[in-house]
C-alpha cells in the first residue's frame, strides 16, 4: 500500500518544481493531492489488465504515477537487526505512449519528475535522504531489460541474470548491496489489478517478497556487513484515491511459517478501505477482501512530529492469523518533502515474523 504515499508524493512534485523544492505541503494532504492530480490523457488501470513481465519492470509513461519500492529486514554480522529502504517514484506530467520516442534530452523536458527515497534504521536510529530529478535527461530513469532504475548515483541495476546491485548514499549513510530475487512474482488483487477504493479505482501492483540480500552498509563512517531478505513492490496507476482519503497504513510481513502477508488500510474508521494478499506456506496467492481484515492500533508513541501508532493488532480469522505488529524503539520518521513513518517491524502472535510498516497521515504531517 505504498502507492498511497507514493501517489501523494509524486503528485506534489510539480508543486515542488514551481517553488524550487522549498514549498510547504498542501493542507489537503497527500491523498487530496493525489486525487486532484491532472489525469487527462493518462491511461487508467482497470480490472482485467494484466502484468506483463519483464516489460512491466520498466517505466510506464502512459500512466501518471509509478514506483519501485524496496524494504529489507537485514542483520549485521553481529546479529543486530538493520532495516533498509530504497524507493524510486516517477510522476508523469505529460502522457506518452510507450511506443512514442522520448523527448530530446537537450530540451530538458519536464514531461515527468522523479523522486528517490533512501533510509536505514539501525540501533534505534534512523537515517533518511531524498533526491529529485526530471525525466528524459538521463539523470533518472528505468528500463526493464536489463533492469535498471536510477536517479543520480542511487541505482538498482541488473548485473547478471538474476543478480542485482543496489547502491545509494546520503548524509551519514550509504549501502552497496547484492540482491538475488527468489521466489515467485506475487500479483496482487485480480491478476495484478489491485483495487484501492470500494468503487474500483486501483493500480497495477506486483511484488517480489523474497529477495536475498548481502552487502555493506556504512553508518556514520562505520561499516557493517549485512544479509537478509528484501521485499520489492512494483506499482503504477494514474488515479485511485478519493480526496477524502487522508492517511494510510501498510504492512508487508514475512512470517516464520513461510507465508507472506501484505495488508493495507486507506482512511480511518467506518470508511476505511482494507485489502491484502496472503501467500500461504505452499506459495498459493490469496486476495484478502476488506471484510476479511481486522486492523487496530494497540499502542502509540509520542515523537517530535506527533502521535504515531507503533503497535497493531492484525486479525485475519479466515486464515487463522492473529498477529501483533510492533515497531522497535526509535523514531523512524522520513523527514522529506512529505514526511511519513517507515519502520521495520517484528511480528508475534499466531505466528512470528518480521517485516515493514508504512504509516502516513500521522504526526504533524499531512
Amino acid at each position: 500500500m505504498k502507492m498511497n504515499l507514493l501517489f501523494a508524493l509524486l503528485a506534489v512534485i510539480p508543486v515542488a518544481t514551481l517553488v524550487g523544492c522549498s514549498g510547504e505541503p498542501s493542507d489537503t494532504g497527500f491523498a487530496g493531492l493525489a486525487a486532484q492530480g491532472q489525469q487527462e490523457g493518462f491511461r487508467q488501470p482497470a480490472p482485467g489488465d494484466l502484468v506483463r513481465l519483464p516489460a512491466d519492470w520498466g517505466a510506464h509513461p502512459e500512466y501518471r504515477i509509478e514506483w519501485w519500492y524496496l524494504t529489507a529486514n537485514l542483520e549485521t554480522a553481529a546479529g543486530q537487526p538493520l532495516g533498509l529502504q530504497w524507493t524510486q517514484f516517477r510522476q508523469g506530467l505529460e502522457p506518452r505512449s510507450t511506443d512514442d520516442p522520448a523527448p530530446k534530452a537537450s530540451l530538458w523536458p519536464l514531461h515527468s519528475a522523479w523522486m528517490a527515497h533512501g533510509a536505514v534504521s539501525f540501533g534505534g536510529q534512523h537515517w533518511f535522504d531524498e533526491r529529485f530529478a526530471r525525466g528524459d535527461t538521463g539523470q533518472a530513469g528505468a528500463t526493464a531489460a536489463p533492469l535498471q532504475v536510477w536517479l543520480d548515483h542511487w541505482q538498482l541495476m541488473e548485473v547478471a541474470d538474476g543478480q542485482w546491485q543496489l547502491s545509494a548514499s546520503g548524509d551519514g549513510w550509504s549501502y552497496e548491496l547484492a540482491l538475488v530475487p527468489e521466489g515467485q512474482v506475487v500479483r496482487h488483487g485480480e491478476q495484478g489489478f489491485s483495487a484501492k477504493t470500494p468503487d474500483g479505482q486501483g493500480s497495477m501492483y506486483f511484488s517480489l517478497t523474497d529477495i536475498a540480500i548481502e552487502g555493506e552498509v556504512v553508518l556514520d563512517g562505520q561499516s557493517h556487513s549485512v544479509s537478509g531478505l528484501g521485499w520489492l513492490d512494483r506499482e503504477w496507476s494514474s488515479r485511485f484515491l478519493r480526496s477524502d482519503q487522508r492517511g494510510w497504513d501498510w504492512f508487508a510481513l514475512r512470517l516464520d511459517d513461510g507465508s507472506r502477508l501484505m495488508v493495507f488500510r486507506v482512511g480511518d474508521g467506518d470508511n476505511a478501505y482494507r485489502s491484502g494478499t496472503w501467500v500461504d506456506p505452499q506459495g498459493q496467492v490469496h486476495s484478502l477482501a476488506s471484510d476479511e481484515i481486522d486492523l487496530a492500533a494497540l499502542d502509540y508513541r509520542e515523537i517530535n512530529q506527533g502521535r504515531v501508532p507503533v503497535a497493531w493488532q492484525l486479525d485475519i480469522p479466515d486464515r487463522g492469523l492473529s498477529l501483533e505488529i510492533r515497531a522497535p524503539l526509535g523514531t523512524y520518521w522520513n523527514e522529506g518533502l512529505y514526511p511519513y513513518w517507515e519502520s521495520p517491524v517484528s511480528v508475534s502472535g499466531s505466528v512470528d515474523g518480521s517485516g515493514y510498516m508504512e504509516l502516513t497521515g500521522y504526526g504533524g504531517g499531512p
Partner: protein
Amino acid sequence: MLLRAILSHYRRHPMQLLALWAILTLATALWSGVWTLTDQARDSMQVGDRQLAGQQLLARQDGAEVTVEDFATLRRQGLCVVPWLEVVVGSGGARVIGVDPLAMSCADSARSGTAPALDGEPFVDIAEAAGLALKRPSRLRLYLARETDRLPEGWRRQPDPSALDTGELADSFLLNLNALAVLVVLVSALLIRSVYTLGLAQRRHGLQLLERYGVQRRRLRRYLLLELGVLALLGALPGHGLGLLLAEMLGAGFGAAMDNLFDTGLLQTSRSVTGFLVTLGVMTLVVAWCGLDLLKVRREQSFIPGWKPMAGFTMLVAGVVLVLVAGSLVVAFLATALLLAGAGLITPWLLQRLVLPHRDASPLHLWRRRELGVLMRRLALPLVALQLAAGTVIAVHALVHTFEGTFNQWLGQRLAGDLFVEVPDGKNISTVASVLSQGHLVDSWHPVERGQVALVDGDQTHILDLMATDTRSPLVREWSLLHASEAPWRAVRKGAVLVNEQLARRRGLAPGSRVSILVEGERRQVTVAGIYADYGRPSGEVLMDVAFLPSGYEPGFRSLTITLPASGNSRQASLVSALEQAWQVNGLQVRDNATVHRIANRIFRQTFTLTRAISYLTLGLAVVALLLTGWVVLGSRHWYYQLLTTWGLAGKAWFHVMLRLTTELMLVIWLAAVPTGIALTWVLVQRINPLAFGWSLPMAVYPGFWLELMALLALSALIVAGAFYLRAPSQVSAPDLATGEER
C-alpha cells in the same frame, strides 16, 4: 489669460522651446540609458552571486561545450551538479537563466539559500529556457555545488570568479559609466540653464509689463516654476523612453563586454520604477537649478567681485591634491569633479583675458575682440559645457586609443607564434617532441601550462593563476615588461618569477620583492624579477619557468605555441596530422593566433562601445546646444552687427567678419577644452584605471584628434555664420541705437 501671456514668449521663439525640450530629452535619455544598463548589470551580478554562492563552474578538459549528457553522467557519478542555461532573449542582449529546481535540491541541502522564483526575471524553468534556446544564442553551464566532490577524469574546476574579485572590478567598471553619466547630467544642466536664462532675459520686458498691469510678482514666479516643471516632465518622459531604447540598443554589446570581462552576463531582471524615479529626480534637480534665479527676490551682485576665478583656482588645487592621494575610486571621482568644476569656473575668466585686444590693433580687430568678450560673458555656461564635453571626448578618445595600441602590442606579444595547440588530456608534450623538432614543420615552439598557486601572506593564502612556460623561447622573451630587475629572463630561468601588474599593485610588489608561494603543496620563497602587463585578467598571476614546476604537478590546462616555417601555412595540416598521430587522438584543438587576435579585438571594441557612445553623444548635445544658444545670442545682437554695414562692410566682407567672430569663439572653446582633456586623460589612465582595474596605461596624447575636434567646431562656426548671413537683415531704428539695448 496670464498663462497665455507668459507662454507667448515661446510662440515668438519656438526654436528656444524646442532647444530646451531637446536638451532635456536627450540629457534624460543619456542618463536614463546608462542608469538602466548599469542598474541591470548590478542586479545581474547580485542575482548570479546569490544563486551561485559557493558553487564552482565545471569545464571539460578537452575544452568542448558541456551538454545535458555531461550533466547526467556527472550526476550518475554522485556529483551534485546543477545546470545553468543562459539564453539571450532581448534584442538588447538581456538573458534569462534556465534552472532545474529538481536538480537543485541536492545543492539546497549542500548550502543554505533560497530557491529562485521562476518568473522570468531572470529565472525560468530550464525546459522553458531550452525552448527559447532553439532560436536564440544560449550557453549551458554546469556548477558543482559541493566543493568536496572529487571530479572524474576529463573534468576540471574553472577558477572561481568570486575568488578573483571580479564583482568588485565589475562594480568599478559600472561606477566609471555612472560617473560618465553624472558628467553628462552636469553638462546638460549647464546647457539647460544657459538656454533658460537666456530666454528669461528676453522675457524680462514682457514680465515687467505684466507686473505693471498688476500681476503679483509671486504669482508670476509660480507660473514660471510651473512652466519649468511641465517642461521638465515633457522632456523627462520621452527622454526616459529614449533612454530605455538606448539601453536596449547598446545592451547587446554592453552585455557581451560584461560577460567577457567579468563573466557576468546581462540578465533579464525586473524593471523597477526606481530607475524612472531616479531619472526624474535628477532632472528635477537640473531644472530646479534653473528655477533658483526665479526664487531670488532680485538679482544680487556677488558679495566678492571675482569670486569665481578664486573659487575655481581653489577647487583646482584641491582637486589636484585629492586626485594624487585618492585611494578609492569614489574619492578619485570626487577629485575629478572638483577639477572639472574648478576648470569650469576659471575658464571664462581666463578666456576673457585671452581675448583682450592689443592696443594698437585695427578698429575691426578691436571691435571683434570686444564683441568676443561680450559673447563669452553671455555664453559662459554653454561655453563651459562644451569645454567639459569636448575635454571628456578628448580624454575618452586618448584612453581608448592608448589602450587599443597598448592592448594590440601586448596581444601581439602574447599571441606570438602562428598556432595555439591544446595538449589533449592525459597526453605528454614529450610524446610529440620528435614532431616539434622537425624543422620543415616547426620553426619554434614553447609550452604553456596553466594552473593555480597560492600566495602565502602570514596565515592567509590567496589563490592566484599560474602560467608556466619555457622562458628560453624567443617568443616569450619578446615580452616587454613594465618593471624589471636586471636580466629578468635569466633570473626566471634560475627560479625567480614574474608577476602581473594586478598582483603587483594589490600586494605592493616590485622587482626584487620576495614572496612565498605554494605550488602543489610545496612552499617556496621566490624573488619577483619583473612585472608584466596583463590586461583584462581580474586575478593576480605568477609566471615561472616550466623547469621549476614540482614533479607530478598537474596543470589545469596545457598548450603549445608554435611558429611555422616561412612557407608554413601549407604545412599546418601536416603538422596537425603528425601531432594527432603521435598523440593518437582525433580532432586536436588548434587555433590560429590571428583568429584569437581578431576575437580579442572584438571584445575590446565591445568594452568601449558604451563609453565612446556616451562621450560622443554628449559632445553632439553640447555642440547642438551651443549652436542654438549662439544663434539666439547672436540673433539678439543682430541689430548691432548690422551696424557694420553702415560702416561700409556689406555682403561677403560682413560675412567674413561674422565668420571670424564665430570661429574665434569656437577656437577659444577648443583652447579651453584641450588642456581639460589632457588633464582628464592623465586622471583616467594614471589614477582611475589603476584604482578600478588594477592596471595603468601609458599617458599619450593625440594632437591629430584635437585638430579633428577643432575642425568640427570650425564647421559649427561656419554654420552659425552662414545661417546668420542668410538671415534677412533687420531694420536698425534710432531708438535701438539710442538705448544700446539688444533685443
